[in-house]
């Protein structure tokens, strides 16, 4: 008698849903265990987290605020993943987007009619992030260099450049020891929903999600992307130009992350400072993956993860427990989903004896 694995022909949808629900529950159970370890009462802790995330309208709005960059970075990862490219560089592309937008805000906005400042910043953010992603994109498309490490390395380069800028040449001369650029002029501030910190970036995110969904399902380019991602050999047989598509995808992917950066600097910080590179790019990968690379799923997952993060902050403030419990939950959730994913792709079977069936 032996337990064997059989590959399922079609990933069972029911198994996927069931699996993910179980995964969420297990993740919370695991988190409870960790909390117990540090002597905290898990139920109380979860209650505080829930209150922190959902307890008031303002708290809910904070969840949305945190979700905005996650949505955009998640979409960035998803569009690249559709063509089987791993864009781990969301963090750096976000930073570049922030730099680009800040550049416009600090140096160009005084000389421009106020109406075009924000659109120009948006464009700058998109282009800066997009071009940053094009570097590894080009290396992959034309030189076949694996993109995982190149995008990752460029993250560090971007962050160092960012620090150099706001510690050095772009530093606010009247900053009084606090490293960062000067505040952006008013015209460079994104509108906020009154009473909250929710900014126009939310519209960018939602628009991006809709646009991406539409493009992937209803345009020629989207179809070609999907075909290349599914089966590059068939794509070549059908005459599609794979390298060109990789370049465009990376531009869009980096651009989305760049928009996230622009949204952070001109919607939350209003300047370039520490606190821009806080991991949204990396979390975006998780969001994209948990959201099954689907724009709708990504929106939902980013809200959920943002909730975990905000709840974690609350936990720190109220119970003096480290806010990183949110990260712990995130990590464990990912693992359990990975595990449940496996069950949807494979079936466990008891067999009489081990069959030696070759690949037909």
């Amino acid at each position, binding site marked *: 008698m032996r337990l*064997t*694995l059989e590959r399922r022909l079609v990933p069972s949808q029911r198994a996927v849903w069931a699996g993910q629900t179980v995964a969420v529950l297990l993740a919370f159970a695991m988190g409870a265990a*960790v909390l117990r*370890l*540090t002597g905290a009462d898990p139920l109380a802790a979860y209650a505080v987290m829930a209150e922190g995330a959902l307890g008031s309208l303002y708290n809910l709005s904070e969840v949305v605020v945190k979700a905005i960059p996650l949505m955009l970075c998640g979409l960035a990862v998803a569009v690249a993943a559709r063509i089987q490219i*791993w864009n*781990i560089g969301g963090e750096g592309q976000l930073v570049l987007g922030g730099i680009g937008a800040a550049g416009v805000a600090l140096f160009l906005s005084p000389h421009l009619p106020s109406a075009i400042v924000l659109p120009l910043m948006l464009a700058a953010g998109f282009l800066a992030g997009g071009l940053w992603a094009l570097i*590894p994109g080009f*290396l992959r498309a034309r*030189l*076949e*260099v*694996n993109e*995982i*490490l*190149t995008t*990752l*390395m*460029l993250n*560090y*380069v971007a962050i*160092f*450049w960012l*620090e*150099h800028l706001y510690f*050095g040449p772009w530093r606010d001369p009247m900053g009084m020891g606090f490293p960062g650029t000067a505040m952006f002029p008013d015209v460079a501030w994104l509108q906020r929903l009154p009473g909250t910190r929710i900014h126009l970036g939310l519209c960018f995110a939602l628009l991006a999600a809709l646009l991406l969904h539409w493009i992937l399902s209803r345009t020629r380019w989207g179809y070609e992307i999907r075909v290349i991602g599914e089966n590059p050999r068939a794509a070549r047989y059908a005459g599609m130009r794979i390298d060109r598509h990789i370049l465009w995808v990376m531009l869009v992917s980096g651009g989305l992350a760049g928009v996230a950066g622009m949204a952070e600097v001109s919607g939350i910080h209003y300047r370039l400072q520490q606190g821009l590179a806080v991991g949204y790019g*990396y*979390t975006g*990968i*998780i969001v994209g*993956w948990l959201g099954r690379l689907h724009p709708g799923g990504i929106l939902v997952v980013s809200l959920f993860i943002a909730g975990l993060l905000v709840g974690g902050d609350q936990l720190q403030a109220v119970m003096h*427990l*480290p806010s*990183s*419990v*949110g*990260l*712990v*939950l*995130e*990590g*464990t959730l*990912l*693992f359990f989903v*990975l*595990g449940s*994913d*496996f069950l949807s792709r*494979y079936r466990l079977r008891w067999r009489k004896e*081990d*069959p*030696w*069936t*070759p*690949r037909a």
Partner: protein
Amino acid sequence: MDAESLTFILSIAIRSSAAILFAAIGEVFTERSGVLNLGVEGMMLMGALSGFVAAHASHSLALGLLAAMAAGGALALVHGFFTITLRANQVVCGLALTILGIGLSSFLGRPIIGTVGMRFTPWPIPLLQDIPVLGPALFQQVPPIYAGYLLVPAAWLFLFHTRPGLNLRSVGENPQAADAAGIPVNLIRYGWTAFGGVMAGLGGAYLSLAYTPGWKENMSAGQGWIAIAMVIFALWNPWRAALGALLFGAVNALQFTFEVRQITLIPSYILRMLPYLFTVAILVIITRSKGIRRRAAAPAALGLPFEREGF
């Protein structure tokens, strides 16, 4: 540059490179078996925390090191289980481990931030330390660094001159051929993945027990990722991994020296970017150069799960 400065820089370089060296050697072995472990950063942090706590609680540095290695190894086994047995995506899994490691270490380590615990003290080696210039730099270090000196040639010998080393290399290059020769592919992958985690944990312990004694959130500051990049720079060879780690350490040391002496020859932010840009350049070269590709390319089966017919 006088001899004293040279010694100074070399000494700092060695000191700053050790954590990366351990993690990189571990990852060389892991990747040589065909498994990509991107969770090194998380394992390093958990190692740093476990090592510090265990040493402090038991007043034994040795126990601290062991605890760190166990922590790293345990996380790596999780990675192995998901990627080898469950055939999950190796990139996602590694990233999840990093996030988990960062979060967990941050969470569990909160209460002990600022605690002063055990630390390694330098063990100068008599006679050897008197060698001009190199002596003080190489032989007035803490014991883990000496272990590092021995680790590199041992790793090289193991890989290329022993049977288990040959088996390991074959598993990563052509698992079907290894399987046909009767080698237990998945078992070997598990083993070396665990080893990689053990090494990463050791690197972390070096950080918390020797380099910057104590525990600080996120104290590895990306050195785990650098180690992964160094593996590629090293073209999966232990000697070159040591060279890469040392180069990184040297850049660090140079940056430090420039700051201290207020030299503005190369802006410090460019100095800090160098290792990363360097790695990208190496990646391009080894992918494009047919010569290098022939002599030392990535293990052919890296990242691909092994499915034997009739599993």
